[in-house]
């Protein structure tokens, strides 16, 4: 039983999270305050939504790197339109609009990948640049500094707040989006045939084809979903930041994918759990946001996060290698001295 636990990747990630937390907390007890916890939860929302979306893709065998670009396109176009028409209706509409926009962009990825049977990584590398490039060239890069009233109002809405010694930490309502995404992804992966199909395709594409799985349909679904979730992440980011800056989020691809991989999502496909990804997200979020509490300057933070990623993925890769190379012992029944 213990052995089984030790073999699970999630165990080591959990250990790492605890170790890192202790390390930071001992250096700076501020880490263990409720304030800090709420701040971390808030910081996890946007990247978190993207982690769980991207995870679906990786399990299915494809690495999508266009999700930040889709997030930015969705949020910027939505914000610009709202600004342009001085939108004052329910905040739900811009949110849904952003999600749909993301879904449409994602479906473009899905169609190209499934129709031409190209690797997702290459396709999304291309579309990422196309989407972002078109956005900036057509709409410019001027930030939308004042959001329309409905979005402005939402950005101030909170689930609860914590009164700390020096300041108040607010858990924004956008946190529900993260929770919602986690629940939806969990449900899809664990309880639907679609989800098992994603694992199947990621595990052995040829076998999935032979077994009659709708590869094309599932692929299009995966990338459309990633797009939709990215749209949600983008608009959440805008609401949380209370401003829409189109250069934000770009470049976060690798960190998000790293969070998923650290959480046990196998980069080769076919394996990954929601719980693991939560741990991976926790690790990355803590590393990005709390190192400052240890006095590590932001410039060095990147190196530290990089180190965590290398060590973390190195450990799981090492484990996988040991599993694969286990040569069964031929001679354990022979009594007497060893050779």
């Amino acid at each position, binding site marked *: 039983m213990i052995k089984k636990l030790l073999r699970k990747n999630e165990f080591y990630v959990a250990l790492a999270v605890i170790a890192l937390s202790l390390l930071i907390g001992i250096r700076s007890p501020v880490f263990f305050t409720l304030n800090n916890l709420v701040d971390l939860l808030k910081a996890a929302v946007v990247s978190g939504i993207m982690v769980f979306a991207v995870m679906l893709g990786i399990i299915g065998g494809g690495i999508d790197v266009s999700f930040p670009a889709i997030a930015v396109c969705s949020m910027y176009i939505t914000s610009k339109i709202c600004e342009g028409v001085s939108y004052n209706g329910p905040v739900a509409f811009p949110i849904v609009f952003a999600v749909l926009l993301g879904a449409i962009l994602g479906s473009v990825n899905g169609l190209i990948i499934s129709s031409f049977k190209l690797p997702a990584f290459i396709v999304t590398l291309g579309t990422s640049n196309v989407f972002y490039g078109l956005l900036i060239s057509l709409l410019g890069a001027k930030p939308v500094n004042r959001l329309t009233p409905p979005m402005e109002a939402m950005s101030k809405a909170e689930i609860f707040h914590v009164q700390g010694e020096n300041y108040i930490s607010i858990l924004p309502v956008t946190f529900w989006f993260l929770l919602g995404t986690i629940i939806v992804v969990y449900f899809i992966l664990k309880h639907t045939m679609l989800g098992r199909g994603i694992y199947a395709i990621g*595990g052995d594409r040829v076998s999935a084809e032979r*077994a009659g799985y709708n590869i094309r349909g599932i692929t299009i679904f995966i990338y459309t979903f990633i797009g939709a979730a990215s749209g949600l992440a983008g608009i959440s980011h805008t609401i949380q930041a209370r401003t829409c800056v189109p250069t934000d989020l770009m470049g976060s691809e690798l960190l998000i994918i790293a969070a998923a991989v650290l959480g046990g999502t196998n980069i080769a496909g*076919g394996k990954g759990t929601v719980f693991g990804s939560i741990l991976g997200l926790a690790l990355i979020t803590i590393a990005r946001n709390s190192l400052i509490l240890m006095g590590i300057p932001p410039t060095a933070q990147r190196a530290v996060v990089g180190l965590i990623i290398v060590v973390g993925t190195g450990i799981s890769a090492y484990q996988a290698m040991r599993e694969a190379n286990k040569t069964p012992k031929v*001679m354990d029944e*022979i009594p007497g001295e060893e050779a």
Partner: protein
Amino acid sequence: MREPFIQLTGISKSFAGVHALQDVDLTIYGGEIRCLAGENGGGKSTLIKVISGFYTPDKGQIEIGGRVFPKLTPQQAINEGIQIIYQDFSVFPNLTVAENIALSYQRLHQKKMVDWHALKKDAQRALDLIHIDLDLQAPVGALSVADRQLVAICRALLQDTKLLVMDEPTTALTRKEVDALFNVVRNLQKKGISILFVSHKLEEVFEIAEELTILRNGKKVIEGPMKDFDRQKFIFYMTGRTIETTKFVPPVIPPSSEPVLKVDHIGIKGLFKDISFELHAGEVIGITGLLGSGRSELARALFGLEAITSGKVYVGGETIKPGSVRDAIAHGIAYVPEDRLTEGLFLPHSISRNIYAATIGKMLDRRGIIDNDKVRKVTDDWIRELSIVTPSGQLPVQSLSGGNQQRVVLAKWLSTNPKVLILNSPTVGVDIGSKADIHAYARKLAGEGMGVIIISDDIPEVLDNCSRVLIMKKGLIVGTMDTSEMDNQALSMKLSEA
């Protein structure tokens, strides 16, 4: 008179001008065990894919259960009860046993949501059908090859199979596992299921099949009940050649001659120990043992792929550094590995490159750049010498059949002018014609002064080609036999003795 389950008439299929199948008729009756035999490239795989609906024939008709299917799709084939178990079993290594067995069944019922409870029950039901016990929660990737095959069979059974097509099912199985499989097959037959067994393994075909259909070069050359065939007739129709199996006559070794290879009490902790033997020039000796006896590990150790922890290996009087393949090659040892696809060949690279892979140094000109003319000549020479069937030496080696691929591996190693040639299971997955050719070549090399070791669990192969055989069990040599004193039965029995 049994009812025909499926009738294929006049099936033809071509790929880019190559006729894979030409006017093939095949009828499979309910509850029969039929073997579809043929050499690689003969059309067996294509025919199976036509039966499964994966390929649509260019010409011909498919009739199942009395109904004609103008354009059979994989889904239709599955609905009619046709299940194919491919050589790789098409299982998902990342999913559990229960999922592999029962997910397709649930999908058949148009379910959108996974019913985990029913999944476990259905999977267990399938396991019980063939009296097998497996951990439902185990990831299939962790199972042995034989167990994965059983999972594939269970999956097929759940889907109300009427015809089970098995493609080379015994390739990776030990004798015991083959027996278990054949038991399962006979049980399935009793339930009225037809089995189409695709194989080119002589002994097994004779053991299990009732009816035989042989394909050669895309055409059906003969068909009939198994009892009408004997070994010679089988080989003749498979290859179009009459192949004589003669016994290898070892040279008389002058008493004072130095052995070309001397192995002195070598061992690797946990894998094998106390292995000693001598190999003289001109000898072909065999090392055999069941799977897990340590014979493969010994083979790898002799070549330096694993470092020995005790004892010494001498070639021509000099010791070889343990764990150094480079040193082994430098001293004249060559090793044709068990798994040519992953250990012996650079699949996407050309035949030519694969041939000079171990002797690039010899292909350079004065400036140290690869001399293409030399490469061309060397490639053509080897293609001719080993009768490698290919239109061009520039084609990727993965385009070749198993037998031809093995010849390329052989060419690569023979280019190094070895003194000792170690062949590990050299004719697995190789057609009968190539098998005979490889054996003949090994003997020729011995006749020219090379020392040859054949490591194999193919008993006839060992008996026909080796003068002596070392029997390994649980990491030790338990016997050295003179092959002139043994026959198939005796050696089999010696191997399976407790």
